[in-house]
């Protein structure tokens, strides 16, 4: 359970940038065997987020650090506080075709373009190159900046909700519980039944499947 102090720390980081509008971008779904990569961008206007208006974000934290209920609550809070929210979805077939890192960078660029006008744009991890709007890369950004943490919440919740739907469409794989990540049960199921439409066919999937199952 996150404390309000964490949220305050994240908000302080953004405010210390000394500008009005801060955009943040982050992704969810780099690690799984199945399902999309989801990249989100959030634009926060700190001129408007004063006093009680910022209160919903007080529990803000990196999406990996909070339980699902708090994450849903934070998702609603971000949607109510943000000036702009952008979500880019990269389906498994596109990840297989273009590569995960490339999709990731493309999504982060698009997310930051969608969150203009920003005075400062922040991204978790790698620099995005000249095709992106001016930005700063922050290592461990989701634990430092409120805008990036907000984007990580939106990406994670959007992806998890899709994977719950996918569980109904492709029953038996357990997508509602592991949301596509590698668990012994998930690996076992793929080996027995073969991959379904939303399993990534790239190299890591091949490592978990028999050669027959992939072809």
């Amino acid at each position, binding site marked *: 359970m996150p404390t309000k102090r964490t949220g305050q720390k994240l908000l302080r980081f953004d405010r210390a940038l000394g500008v009005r509008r801060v955009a943040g971008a982050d992704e969810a779904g780099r690690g799984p065997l199945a399902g999309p990569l989801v990249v989100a961008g959030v634009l926060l206007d700190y001129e408007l987020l004063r006093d009680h208006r910022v209160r919903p974000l007080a529990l803000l934290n990196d999406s990996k650090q909070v339980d699902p209920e708090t994450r849903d609550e934070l998702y609603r809070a971000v949607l109510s506080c943000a000036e702009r929210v952008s979500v880019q979805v990269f389906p498994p077939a596109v990840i297989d075709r273009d590569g*995960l890192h490339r999709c990731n960078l493309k999504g982060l660029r698009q997310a930051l373009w969608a969150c203009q006008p920003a005075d400062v744009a922040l991204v978790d*991890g790698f620099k995005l190159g000249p095709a992106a709007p001016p930005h700063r890369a922050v290592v461990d950004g989701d634990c430092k900046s409120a805008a990036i943490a907000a984007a990580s919440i939106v990406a994670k919740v959007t992806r998890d909700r899709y994977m719950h739907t996918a569980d109904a469409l492709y029953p038996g794989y357990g997508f509602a519980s592991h949301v596509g990540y590698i668990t012994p049960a998930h690996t076992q199921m793929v080996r027995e039944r073969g991959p379904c439409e939303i399993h990534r066919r790239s*190299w890591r999937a091949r*490592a978990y499947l028999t050669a027959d199952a992939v072809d």
Partner: protein
Amino acid sequence: MWLAGGELDLVVRRGRTIAFVEVKSKAGCGFGDPLEMVTPVKIERLRRAALAWLAAHPELEALDVRFDVVAERAGRIEHLPEAF
């Protein structure tokens, strides 16, 4: 080389691209596919190490970054570009 808690096997530059290459070979037998050892946790460590490496080489900041895996599978050397 070890950086930020992760180990980089190879850093290769060709033109405007810099590739961080993870090399995996099957050590002994009965441990499954070597690619299975490239876990999400391992991948996050490699990304961190790459970030630390790039931070130490600011002149290369504008290059495109790529992550490859080279693995020995079933007696063959397999190169997986853009692996993660």
